[in-house]
């Protein structure tokens, strides 16, 4: 059997054997070496470093987060080549800033770091996309946009993913969104039935086969009326 790929072994950059964390302190713990490296590399961009429950959080400015994540990815001494998650947090105390969170892993050094951007209330909800660094960010950013309304500048195809494209009630994971939705039950039902997402194609998809003319009349009317994918 031929072996087209060289096997990649994580942890080649560190000698330490990983162990199950025990007695993890709620506050404090060992700080990740990457935090100091980021602070040294980007003076002024890091507003705070928090260490809690054994995890290091680097809070950076929105303007430079792309640069910092790019550096963490490319720099051989950091080599954060794996993006675990992109998500956001809004607090119940609505005066607290909304946070966008990136969870990065370095397979080579077996490290984990959390990069965070705080968006003060009232500011534009926009952060740079890391899709050009990690292709895996595609759907994670789309979901974050879908749930929180945060725009990821530079994402190639930022539209709703879990909710259907004509969803009108807003962004469900925001704290001002009530648990049962904004609309009345009857209105929700009406919207859901008229959305008909199972037989819906975007104009982009219809351009594949010049299938527009074959559609039912009501759908043709809807699409030619300027209905688009996304917001």
């Amino acid at each position: 059997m031929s072996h087209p790929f060289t096997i990649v072994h994580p942890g080649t950059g560190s000698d330490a054997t990983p162990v199950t964390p025990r007695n993890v302190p709620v506050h404090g713990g060992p700080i990740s070496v990457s935090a100091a490296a980021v602070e040294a590399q980007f003076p002024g961009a890091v507003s705070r470093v928090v260490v809690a429950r054994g995890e290091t959080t680097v809070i950076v400015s929105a303007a430079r987060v792309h640069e910092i994540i790019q550096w963490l990815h490319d720099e051989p001494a950091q080599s954060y080549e794996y993006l675990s998650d992109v998500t956001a947090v809004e607090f119940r105390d609505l005066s607290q800033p909304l946070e966008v969170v990136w969870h990065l892993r370095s397979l080579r050094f077996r490290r984990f770091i959390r990069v965070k951007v705080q968006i003060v209330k009232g500011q534009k909800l926009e952060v740079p996309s890391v899709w050009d660094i990690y292709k895996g960010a595609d759907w994670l950013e789309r979901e974050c946009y879908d749930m929180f309304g945060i725009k990821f500048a530079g994402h190639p195809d930022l539209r709703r993913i879990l909710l259907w494209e004509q969803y009108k009630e807003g962004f469900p994971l925001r704290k001002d969104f009530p648990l049962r939705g904004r609309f009345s039950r009857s209105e929700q039902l009406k919207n859901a039935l008229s959305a008909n997402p199972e037989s819906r194609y975007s104009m982009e998809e219809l351009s594949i086969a010049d299938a527009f003319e074959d559609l039912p009349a009501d759908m043709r009317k809807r699409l030619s009326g300027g209905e688009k994918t996304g917001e």
Partner: protein
Amino acid sequence: MANRTVEVELSTTGMGPDGKPQRVPLFVGGDAGVSVAAPPAMEPELEGEHMLINIGPQHPATHGVLRLVLELDGETVVRCIPHVGYLHCGFEKIGEYRQYNQIIPWTDREDYLNSIGNNVAFALGAERLFGIDITERCTVLRVMAAELSRIASHLVWMGTTCIDIGAFTPFLWSFQERENVYNLLEGWVGARLTTSATRVGGMAADIPDKWIDGLKGFISTFPKTIDECERMLTKNAIWVGRTVGLGVMSPDEAINYGLSGPLLRASGVAYDVRKDFPYLDYETYDFDVPVGSAGDVYDRFLVRVEEMRQSIRILDQAVKRLPDGPVNIDDPRVILPPKHKATSEMESMIHHFKNVMEGPRPPIGECYVAVESPKGEKGYYMVSDGTSKPVRWRIRPPSYVNLSAIPKMVEGHLLSDVIAINASIDIVMGEIDR
């Protein structure tokens, strides 16, 4: 497309003129196996005319309500546009209105083939948030739960993928074996699918008497079933021909796309959360991480089969080391008192009341705890503001991220291979749509 040679057994095509079964090697080119040829070129008059095909959301081969819109050139996929979200129920939103122990039933329902594994993962995350260290016995019990559910999930994967590709018998065998796993789980927690087995700081119940004997029986008989399934599939010319060289992801691509679990390991990256970021004392168990070398559907199959064997090894060691002692930690602030005490002692009744009505309160802060679920790296990110309900409960769904690479995987393959590639990702729509 990878030019890969795999040893296959000769297949029987029928009776020869001499009355004996005629044996013909099933391969195209090469000397001892199947090599995958590039799809034939299009007929010239049809070139350039593309076709739109819609698969799903109600389609038996999409493993749930997944919808794929495909652009085809002849039978070759040019572009794939996946649509998800038909099963979205807002788990994360509901979690913000529930106490930590009340979220555990929701974790059953996201990745419902691995429900007890999700319970374990969520409890680990909540315990990190609370700053709790669980007991030795609970650790070993949770390892057993997680590995049993990994076996059950891989069995469902193997069975359904066989159905998709056209083999029926391994489906029956693997579902029969999965039944044994579910019988064990039923004997332990009373439920088969929606287990809700863990609590913050312990388990809902200790294992009953003689349960370990049932587990030992399963450990001794299960490897035989894997061998049988492997005999049906691993060198089967049809299986090999339909899986080799499909959906290839190189190691760099797989890491960049955020793939995890058997998909990533089949691509030759030996990343396993149990080894690299261990939890539940996995570093003390002796097991191997199977790694593929070609990153195709066939390698994903081999990796999953080997993972089941390794799970059996872990279960075997867990049975041997299971210590006596309490399952739950001794902390009345998070653990419910026993019922007889709650009805007879004043203090226990107050603890019971506080725990049920208010719920345990973790300190302010956040944590991200990832485990190796059968699908990959499953993470729970929880943020607490000091109240008994999380501000944010985020699921990092492995199959969601894995599925996002499907346009890349199916590009250039035939329409029928889309089904095999989609099956190889092992998606659970409950987890993807949440």
